[in-house]
């Protein structure tokens, strides 16, 4: 904690959890997609669904997938910005899910090349957790630079990725692997301390049995 966690950050109101956190979640979903979305369906759950409109949560979520930051004046006009860019954004209210945390949103994003389904929650003070990517369980805050691989569940893939990162002097802070079922597709999430060099995703993708590698730049921690 430093002094600018106390006086600061600069943010668009009214709420760190319902506005700033929603922007951050959208930012992460966009980074996971890895390109400008062309079509987005965003489903709001629980408290987000019930009180989201009063906090501008819907506008904040759309601002997030547009790549606006938490202090951007454009958040309020995010629907208009999306329309001008030809991005179709569809917000779905009215859902509850007993197993999801209070402030949860599900992003179904389609871009030119990729599509992704991301589920996450705003957990207070602007901090967020992404707990599902394309059906895989994750636990990922966006506070670190993160590498995500989707790969065939085969022996040695994880070791190859780890030694590849070691060669580049990238230190692994945290790591988590989950899979659909034995021998099928798996997702690995690696949070690292360092800046991730450009092009590392395509270098990783060329490793045998890796279907896709993504680099997700950190979005700051607490508001």
């Amino acid at each position, binding site marked *: *904690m*430093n*002094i*600018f*966690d*106390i*006086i*600061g*950050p*600069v*943010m*668009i*109101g*009214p*709420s*760190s959890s319902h*506005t*700033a956190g929603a922007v951050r979640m959208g930012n992460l979903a966009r980074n996971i997609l890895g390109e400008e979305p062309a079509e987005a369906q965003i489903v709001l759950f629980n*408290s987000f669904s*019930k*009180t989201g*409109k*009063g*906090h*501008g949560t819907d*506008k904040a979520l759309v601002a997030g997938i547009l790549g606006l930051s938490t*202090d951007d*004046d454009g*958040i*309020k006009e995010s629907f208009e910005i999306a329309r001008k860019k030809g991005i179709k954004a569809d917000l779905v209210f009215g859902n509850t899910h007993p197993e999801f945390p209070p402030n949860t949103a599900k992003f179904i994003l389609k871009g030119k090349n990729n599509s992704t389904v991301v589920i996450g929650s705003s957990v*207070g*003070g602007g901090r967020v957790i992404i707990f599902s990517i394309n059906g895989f369980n994750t636990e990922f805050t966006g506070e670190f630079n993160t590498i995500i691989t989707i790969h065939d569940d085969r022996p040695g893939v994880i070791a190859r990725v780890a030694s590849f990162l070691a060669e580049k002097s990238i230190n692994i802070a945290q790591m988590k692997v989950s899979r659909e079922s034995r021998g099928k597709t798996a997702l690995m999430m690696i949070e690292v301390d360092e800046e991730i060099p450009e092009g590392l995703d395509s270098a990783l993708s060329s490793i045998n049995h890796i279907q896709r590698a993504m680099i997700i730049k950190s979005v700051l921690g607490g*508001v």
Partner: protein
Amino acid sequence: MNIRTLDEIITEAEAQKVSISTIIKIIESKELETSVENLTKKMKEYFQVMKESAQKGIERPISSLSGITGGEGYRLWKASENAISDNVTLKAAARAMAVSNVNASMGRIVASPTAGSCGIIPGVLISVAEKLGKSDDQITDVLFTAGAVGKIIAMNATLAGAEGGCQAECGSAVAMAAAATVELSGGTPRQVGHAVAIALKSLMGLVCDPVAGLVEVPCIKRNGMGAVQAIMAADMALAGIESIIPADEVIKAMGEVGRMMPEQLRETATGGLATTPTGKRIKRELFG
């Protein structure tokens, strides 16, 4: 240097015969591995955002996104000529509400320490500086003092309404604003400590009970009232009035009161004003 209490900071400032903000700037620049100049520059930028938000909210009535509040800062500002309270106090309250109005309208603010309590520090400091003829640089300096007080509260209690009720958010903001005001007015570090204690004591036990869960009722007017209390706490400390309970003990007690507070009164909108007949009606009308 691993400082955990306000008393350590005050003692250090007294020993070095400098202000609290001088001490804090040096500590923070070491922690953040950057120069004091860089820190000051960033804080000054934050102060500009504070000024812009206060100005925006007094120039014209600003409505919230939900439409249940709006224009409180503007109306009080316009009433200043015929008001009963003195000019500085009234302007501080008007500006505090103005910033909160901007927050509720999805405008840009500085969380200080939180979005819900973002009006108090700008409202007080801009208005006090206007009366005392202090510059933006001088206000920027005392924002470090306010930040230090907030940091000590965060370490020893909490700044989150969900954890400690409104005393943790607006209560802390009032204490921080009072501290900065004392330093801006030329008070001693010891007097800063007393202002913190006096301010926090006067808001102890305050619950967080937002109608419909929105940062509007009672938050906006509470920011206005908080500004007034900050100025009076500063005046008391500057007059040589001392808090019998030391600031660090008051801070710990505030945290303890927060932990004793039922969940219904900690930002969940399930008690207090949120569950009054009118509070429930507003919620029904907004969200069905």
